[in-house]
């Protein structure tokens, strides 16, 4: 039995208990979580090749053992301002379902934090902020101790079509300012 199968088996058990595991990471002081089974690996930041005429949060593409993987800066994706990349900057490589295939995408975060086991019932839906803030990619909010963790739906977050929508949103915001 290989690791993936083990993980799968574990997942079934977890699901029976109604618990899922989440990997959390930090972004500008807030803690965000993603389904741990979506995480392929975590690696240090390495230089990426920029792709011209792409939104600023697309850091470019990276060579991940022969595969070309796009790198998304989540800080910039959420308009949290840019942080200089240092030795502790981390890329979380995620597997994202897009239409009929799985894409591998790396996201740059400030640092990985923890792994939590969460009960489905513990997830509160994100409040509706109206049209100004798109909360589609938030699967829910969880409370761990006295902290709030934002659980992301990465399929929605990193879908390339959705990226385009977000560009429109951010440009609109600029105009408002």
């Amino acid at each position: 039995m290989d690791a993936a199968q083990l993980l799968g088996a574990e997942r079934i058990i977890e699901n029976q208990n109604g618990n899922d595991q989440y990997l959390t990471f930090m972004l500008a002081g807030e803690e965000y979580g993603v389904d741990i089974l979506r995480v392929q690996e975590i690696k240090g930041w390495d230089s990426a090749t920029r792709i011209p005429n792409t939104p600023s949060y697309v850091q470019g593409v990276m060579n991940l053992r022969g595969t070309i993987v796009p790198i998304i800066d989540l800080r910039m994706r959420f308009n949290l301002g840019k942080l200089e990349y240092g030795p502790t900057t981390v890329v979380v490589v995620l597997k994202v379902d897009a239409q009929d295939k799985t894409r591998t995408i790396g996201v740059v975060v400030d640092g990985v934090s923890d792994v939590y086991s969460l009960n489905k019932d513990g997830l509160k839906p994100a409040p509706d902020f109206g049209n100004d803030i798109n909360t589609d990619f938030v699967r829910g909010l969880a409370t761990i101790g006295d902290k709030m963790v934002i659980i992301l739906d990465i399929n929605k977050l990193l879908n390339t079509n959705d990226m385009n929508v977000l560009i429109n949103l951010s440009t609109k915001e600029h105009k408002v300012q």
Partner: protein
Amino acid sequence: MSIDLSQFKQTFIEESLEGLDVMESSLLNLGEGTANLEVINNIFRAAHSIKGGSGTFGFNDIAQFTHVLETLLDQMRSGERPVTQHAVELLLASVDCLRMMIDSIRDSTNYDTEHASNVKQQLESLLENRDQQQPAAPKSPVSTTVVQSPSGWLIKFSPHVHMLKTGNDPVLMFRELSNVAAVEIKADYSDLLDFSDLNPEDCYLRWEIRLTGEVEETAIKDVFAWVADECDLEIIPLQRNEPSSQIASDNADVQHKQAVTHPEPVAVQAEDKSHAAANENPVPLPANAPKITAPVAVANSAANKEAASIRVAIDKVDQLINMVGELVITQSMLSQLGDDFDMEKLEKLRNGLAQLERNTRELQENVMRIRMLPISYSFNRFPRLVHDISQKLGKKVELKLSGEGTELDKTVMEKIGDPLVHLVRNALDHGIESPEMRVKAGKNEVGLLQLNAYHKGGNIIIEIADDGAGINKSKVINKALQKGIINSATEVDEDKIHELIFRPGFSTADAVSDLSGRGVGMDVVKKNIKELGGSIVISSTEGKGSVFSIRLPLTLAILDGQLVRVGDEVYIIPLISVVESLQIKKSLVNQLAGKSELYRLRDEYIPVIRLYEIFNITPKTTEFEEGLLIVVESDGKKVGLFVDDLLGQQQVVIKGLETNYKRVEGFSGATILGDGTVALIMDISGVIAMSKSIKKHSQSENASGSKDAAA
């Protein structure tokens, strides 16, 4: 132990389809009345091996069908029957029919049995027809008794031990002989081992065959043509009065008066595994003989989708093995060096690394060559196509193929097939005129269609040339005016006309036929070619003919790239689109309407694209004198790309950006450089399109921008 026949079934299908291709092309070479023996023999051999194979695998309907076909061919071969146009057409129809049958086996589907039996009936009626016309002609006798006749042959047939493994079955050959003349077969099993030592896949038997009747020696040799390398064959003519007992050996207890029966039971033990499946009327097998029907059934039930396989010439594989051998040697040398390395061995290490580089490159080139196939795979279908279509249209066309040996990537070949068919159909339908019109125009009434392929630079060029009417420009212009694509006839030049031809829905045909005229097609042709990274150019002279030349990259996986630097970024320009690189003389740069820059290159003005502008990056320099201009060509248009610096040239492996991201305008993909970083590969036509849209955008912005500046 039994032989699983299913593993050979795929081979049988592939070989049969190839055989059919051979038959088809040979049939097309078979002009009326000219009984070229070599050509007929070719067809006959192909038919024969299909028959043999289908018999072995139990596809009796195919075997029976081919048998009728073979009889007809045999009569042609012996000159008993003239090669008529009708017969050739019928043979072509049978080839189609056989192809349908074999396809149905491959896909495990049912074929149109009615059509098959219809064709078969036609063949049979043709055969009977001959018999009525020439009742005196000797029909190949299938007699069941040995007739003492004035002359005959004694054949000593000693197969090598491994003959059965090559898929040859003596029974089939004997049956074949019995079709030619009356036979008397004696088996010599003196070499047979003890049952315990017996390898059931080996052949221990020898045969003596006495053939009586007037038979050509070549006819006998043909029967054994397949096993010529796998046996010792002696063919001795028999004298008139030689008694048959002379050749009877002591141990020849078993005589087969009729060759269609199976070898005697002792032989069965040794061979039945390969035979019995082939046996249409199997004799009762000894109880200990294993059953062989099961594997065949398995083979039939297995899902038989067309396997994407490739046939590789053995010399290519041998070369690869040699290279891998060299690579291994280099590797062991290097690892030895690394075991106890000191600076004195540095030179050795360098040499070793250089050798490694050479080995790797050679290996890469040769692995790529495996995917390369001669374009004849694609060209071979055209003789038939041209034959059929020209007949349908009542035109006389001669097809000339050249450069069939030119190799190109299998994927490219598969994708270029349909566009080529379309262009050939077009040439036949629109290009070449009817014989009357050609005579009126003072041309030979037989039109000439040429297909040519050759390598040029990193490309393969395929030309489809006809000596027909050429493109009727006024007709194209009128049609375009009619459809409202253009406004006046004056604005149309040569290029524009060619562009019009490739427009979707554009056709100048007066009537829509089932061949062409719907205006669908040329646009698809262009699209397919573009998808492959190629281009198509038309040159046409009214009344003289047209030439369509398609330029295609040799392979899709690897390209020769020119590395350039813009700011901190490295980009790759496909070397095939690079015309030249030069230092810019500022005096040769001209401004057009304040925004567009033109560079005078000898007697041409080419637009300059500043790459940093369209890619939105900070360059090292914006001064023309400090950078370089790379002149590239795409779609027949030249542009100059302004870059900071020129780096090396290297072969790069193309990786798609779509796999994990999406298509990016101006880039066809990415690659990984020697240092592990990713570099983007530029798509020149995309870059040109981008620069156009940016210029338009900035112009409109300028118009509105002045207002903003004031506010």
